[in-house]
C-alpha cells in the first residue's frame, strides 16, 4: 500500500512554562489520504490547534517535541528540524519548502489574517513569488484571477484592500490564498466560526465544491460537530491532548463509542427532533493540561467512571473497522461497534 498523504505517529508536543509542562498533544496518531477530509473536533484547549501547528512547525519557542513523527507522503518532515532538546528550528529548509506549497493553512479568525495596509492581490502574489521566484508577473496574476474565479469573488476586487471586503469575501480570499500553490493538504482551523449562518453555509458549500474540483485533502479543525458532519469523511475527537475516538463520520455519529463523544453530541441543540428533551450538560470543566487527571483523562467528568478509570490509562481500542475508542468499557457501554449511539 502506498504511503498516505499525511501521517502523524504518536506525536507528543509539550510546552514548557513556569508552572510546569503543558501536555498539549499526547500520543496523537492519524492519517489523511489523498483528497480525504479529516475533521478534528474538540473544545478549546484540547490541543487541536497545537496539533495543526506542529504539522507546519509554527509552534511557539517553548514547544518541545517529546516524541513521534510527522510524515508527508512517507517522508518525515519533523525529524530534521527537531533539535536535541526537543525544540523546533522554524527555519529549517525542508519544512520551509513544504509550508504553503504542500500544506497550507486557513487560520482561525481568518477575518483578520490579511495585512490591512496591503492590497489583497499583492498579498496572494507574494505567497506565489516566494515559492516560484522564476514565475513571470503575468503568470502570477493570471493564477490569481483563476483563484478568484474558483472561490467566486469578482476579479475587479483583486486590487482592493482587506477592509473593502465583507466578512464572507475575506474568508473566500483566504481560501484562495490557501489554494494558491495547489497544495496537497489544507489545514482549516475553525474556518467559519466568525461568520454568520448564511455566509457560513455558503462558504462550507464552496469548500466542498473546491475540494471536489481540486482533489485537495483537508484537515478540518473545529469545535462544531455539525460542520464536521457536513464536510468530512473521517473524524477524530480530541480531549485533553489525546484522541479519544476516531473513525468515519458515520461511525462516530451513529455508533458512538466513547462517553465524551456521546456527551459532546448530546450537548448540541438541534432544529430537528424533540424540543422538550433537555440537553445533557457535561459536568465540570476541561482539565488543566499541566497536571492532567491520572488514569483516563475524562474520568472526573464521565458519568460511567469506575475504579479502574482512576488509575489505569486506557489505550485506543479497536471497536470496528477503522473505528477506535479510548475507553476501558467501550464494549460494555456501547456494544461492540454498533448501536448505543447518542
Amino acid at each position, binding site marked *: 500500500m502506498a504511503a498516505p498523504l499525511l501521517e502523524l505517529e504518536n506525536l507528543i508536543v509539550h510546552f514548557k512554562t513556569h508552572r510546569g509542562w503543558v501536555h498539549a498533544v499526547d500520543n496523537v496518531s492519524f492519517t489523511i489520504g489523498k483528497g480525504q477530509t479529516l475533521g478534528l473536533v474538540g473544545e478549546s484547549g484540547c490541543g487541536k490547534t497545537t496539533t495543526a501547528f506542529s504539522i507546519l512547525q509554527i509552534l511557539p519557542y517553548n514547544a518541545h517535541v517529546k516524541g513521534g513523527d510527522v510524515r508527508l507522503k512517507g517522508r518525515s518532515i519533523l525529524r530534521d528540524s527537531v533539535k536535541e532538546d526537543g525544540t523546533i528550528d522554524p527555519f529549517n529548509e525542508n519544512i520551509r519548502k513544504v509550508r504553503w506549497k504542500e500544506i497550507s493553512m486557513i487560520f482561525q479568525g481568518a477575518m483578520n489574517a490579511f495585512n490591512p495596509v496591503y492590497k489583497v492581490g499583492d498579498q496572494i502574489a507574494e505567497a506565489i513569488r516566494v515559492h516560484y521566484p522564476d514565475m513571470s508577473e503575468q503568470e502570477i496574476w493570471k493564477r490569481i484571477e483563476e483563484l478568484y474565479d474558483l472561490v467566486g469573488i469578482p476579479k475587479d476586487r483583486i486590487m482592493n484592500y482587506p477592509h473593502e471586503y465583507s466578512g464572507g469575501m475575506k474568508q473566500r480570499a483566504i481560501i484562495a490564498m490557501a489554494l494558491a500553490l495547489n497544495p496537497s493538504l489544507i489545514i482549516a482551523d475553525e474556518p467559519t466560526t466568525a461568520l454568520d449562518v448564511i455566509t457560513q453555509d455558503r462558504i462550507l458549500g464552496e469548500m466542498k465544491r473546491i475540494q471536489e474540483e481540486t482533489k485537495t485533502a483537508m484537515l478540518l479543525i473545529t469545535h462544531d460537530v455539525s460542520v464536521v458532519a457536513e464536510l468530512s469523511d473521517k473524524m477524530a475527537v480530541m480531549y485533553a491532548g489525546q484522541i479519544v475516538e476516531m473513525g468515519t463520520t458515520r461511525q462516530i455519529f451513529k455508533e458512538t463509542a466513547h462517553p465524551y463523544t456521546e456527551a459532546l453530541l448530546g450537548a448540541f441543540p438541534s432544529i430537528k427532533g424533540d*424540543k422538550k428533551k433537555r440537553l*445533557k450538560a457535561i459536568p465540570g470543566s476541561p482539565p488543566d493540561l499541566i497536571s492532567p487527571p491520572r488514569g483516563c483523562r475524562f474520568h472526573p467528568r464521565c458519568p460511567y467512571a469506575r475504579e479502574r478509570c482512576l488509575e489505569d490509562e486506557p489505550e485506543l481500542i479497536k471497536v470496528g473497522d477503522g473505528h477506535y475508542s479510548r475507553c476501558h468499557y467501550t464494549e460494555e457501554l456501547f456494544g461492540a461497534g454498533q448501536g448505543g449511539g447518542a
Partner: protein
Amino acid sequence: MTDENVEIRDEVVLQVRDLRKLFEIKRSFKEVLARRPILYVKAVDGISFDIRKGEILGLVGESGCGKTTTGRLVTRLETPTSGHIYFHGVDVAKLQGKALKAFRRHVQMIFQDPYESLNPRFTVMQTVMEPLLIHGIGDTYDEKLEMVIQALEDAELKPAEEYLDRFPHELSGGQRQRVAIARALVLKPQFIVADEPVSMLDVSIRSGVMNLMLDLREKYHLPYIFITHDIAVARYMSDRMAVMYLGKIVEIGESDNVVFNPSHPYTRALITAVPVPDPDHKHGRVQIKGELPSPINLPPGCRFHPRCPYMEKGICDVKEPELVEVAEGHMVACHFARKLYEEGFSPSEGAEEATQA
C-alpha cells in the same frame, strides 16, 4: 399609538410598541459645510412585541440586524428615538434620573462575553454585591451577604462560600457566566435580557448554562429576552421566537411553529443554512442572493426584496409588507406570507437528492 390602544393584561410584563432607534452618523466639518444631510443608521425600525410572565422570547438574526440594540433599548441602556416600552403598563421609554434607576432595578442584562463583563479587580462577592449597594438594598452587611450567597447558589455555584473571594481569572468561562447570572439575579429582577450568553462558551459548558437559565425561569417565573444568532439555540431556549432582519421583525410566533413552518423567505434561508449534526442530513441550498444591505440606505419596499427568491416586481419593491397573522400568534411580514405558509416547508428543500423525511 395612544395608551388606550394597549390592553393592559396582568400577566404581560413588557409590551414594546413601534420601537425605533436611529443612530446618527457623524459628519465631518467639511460635510457640515457642504450641507450634507444627516444620515441615520436605522438599527431598530419600528418593532412591537409582548412578553408574558415566565416566557422566554428568542430574538434571532444575523449580526447587524438590530437584535442587540433591541435588548439595550428594552433595558434602557439606550434611549429609543420613538416608540413605547410598557413595563407593567407604565411607559418607560422616556424615563430619566431617579425613575430610570428605579426601573433598572427590575430589569437586568447578561452580556455575551463573561471575560469582559466582569471587573477583573473585583472578587465574586464584590461583583455580585455591587448591585445591592447601588440600589441600597439590604440593611446590614450580613443581610446583603446572604442575598449574594442565595444568588450564587441559584446560579449553581455551590458551595457559594468557596467562590466568594475568588477573582474572575480564577474561574472558568462557564463559572464566570454563572457569576454574571448571579449578579443579574441578586436584585430579584422581573425581567432579564440575555445577549448571546452562551456563544462565547465551550460546547460542553454551554448546555449547562442554558439548562440553568431554563431552571431559573421555572423557579422564579422569570421572563427573558434571549438574543442569539443561532436558531437552534433559540429554539431550545425560547417559547416564542422573533426573527429580525435589518431592524424589523420579519416573523414572530411559537418557536416550533416558526422552525417547522417558517413563512418568511428569510427565516427559511436561516433555517436551511444551519448545519445539522447528522451525517445523513441532506443539506438544502440557501437560495438567497447577495449580502446584507447597509442599514443606512435601506432598499425601498420590502427590505428583503433584493435577496429574496420569491420577489415579484411591482409589489415587493414598492410596498413595505406589514406583519400579517398566518396562524394564531404566528405573524409574518411578507406579501406572500399566506401562500408560503400553506405551501409548507422542508429544510432539505433544494438538496441534490431528496431523501429521508
